[in-house]
């Protein structure tokens, strides 16, 4: 069986062609770099995404942009967004600071400084 997919690792968006035999990938083509191969493998069996969302900071009356450190399962994204809303964060915050650990196998980190 042949599956076509668009790689989302970078803005180029290579069109990948994956050949599947008995639920296993036998070959991948169309990728301009190695990351496309890993992407195809994950996307076909366990699609993951980097999650980016926001957390409210009451003292600044503004939202703090946050991200998942590593990709997490695509179908868990919405649930994670809901959970992340409940996290309380204390100022000051540094970019990269871990706000909560171990959400679906990754940490949620701050995307910028906030004083």
């Amino acid at each position: 069986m042949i599956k076509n997919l668009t790689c989302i690792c970078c803005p180029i968006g290579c069109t990948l062609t994956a050949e599947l035999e008995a639920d296993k990938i036998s070959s991948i083509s169309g990728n301009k770099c190695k990351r496309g191969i890993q992407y195809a493998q994950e996307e076909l069996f366990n699609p993951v995404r980097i999650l980016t969302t926001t957390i409210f900071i009451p003292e600044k009356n503004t939202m703090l942009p946050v991200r998942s450190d590593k990709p997490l399962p695509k179908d868990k994204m919405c649930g994670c967004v809901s959970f992340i809303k409940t996290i309380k964060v204390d100022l000051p915050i540094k970019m990269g600071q871990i706000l909560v650990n171990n959400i679906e196998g990754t940490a949620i980190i701050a995307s910028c400084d906030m004083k």
Partner: protein
Amino acid sequence: MQKVDVLVIGAGPAGTAAAIAAKEAGAKEVLIVERGDRIGGILNQCIHNGFGLQLFGEELTGPEYAQRYADKTENAGIEVLLQTIVLKIEKDRSVLLQNTTGIFQVSCGSVIVATGCRERPRGAINIPGSRPSGIFSAGTAQKLVNIKGYMPGKNVVILGSGDIGLIMARRMTLEGARVLAVCEIMPYSSGLKRNIVQCLESFDIPLHLSTTVTKILGKERVERVEISAVDSSFKPIDGTQRIIECDTLLLSVGLIPENELLDGLDIEMDTTTGGAIVNDKMETSAQGIFACGNCLHVHDLADYASLEAEIAGKNAALFTLEKRNHTTEIPFLAGFGITGIVPQKVSLDALKNGVVISLRVKQPFENSRVIIKNENKVIKEVREQHFLPGEMIRFTLKADNAEILIAEVIKND
């Protein structure tokens, strides 16, 4: 009156990069003026990742990219005036500023305009219908969601499948809204393919190509929109109208470079880019006034806006320090299929060392290549699988000499 060597207007990815480059090129007093309450410009609300791949080899979120430049700006000893706007740039490069302390003037050795762009509103494309609340440009919705934490709607239709529209389709969905459709008037999306996948397909949001919104309905708040298929001249096809019940319409129908500050300075403008005509130093036709970033021409990648801004910054500093050479400039003209060439003028000494050129095709081309000619002689070819108007073509052009440069599309035989 305060005197600065280089004034940069805007602290987005272009403005900050320009200021840092100006400092590195020897300018002593570099001042950035920014109307927002933090450095970063539009990147502060672009919380998604996809930035920095070209510059840092990493996939950063917009705020992360902005933070890196904010840190570099601070470390470089560049002064930043936040929540300050420029009222006017005078011909002698004195600039009128305003903030809550008052109105004051700054005299500048050189000025770099990095004011970004604004979104095309509903009124500019005249979508018929009523004028209820619930119609937002995608960027305004993005600001409400990502900076203020307010949801602008629950059942959303998006017009425009450029990246901003696609990104907002995903963002609204993640925050609990239902995005019912993304409509695109062209027969193809101008957004990155990866965004079609990760923003629409991943959430089962339908994309209707060759479709536009032909009416907005609702007395007080949006209640429904009428969408129609369009023909090859983008005219709605009678009989294809259908109604989508919704409470929100997001518009992602084009970005317009923001160049109001250049009015009254008699600066030559390019109608194909919406920005100023510049030479390879990013200098406009007004001496000492430079332009870079989205106000010069709309970029697809922030990385390239920053790289371009470095050229503006360096040359603005050299201008102030009076370290510039003047050499002959030749025009760079758009031939068949090409538009939006930047820079529009190239100096011969820079051409010897290589000049970064950006341009776009006017329509999609398959099985073709872009050629650059010096009069009749082809001096460079750019080959790709296909060329799309939504994807800026960027390359370095090098030549020992030239009279006149022309870029055009020709079919591969």
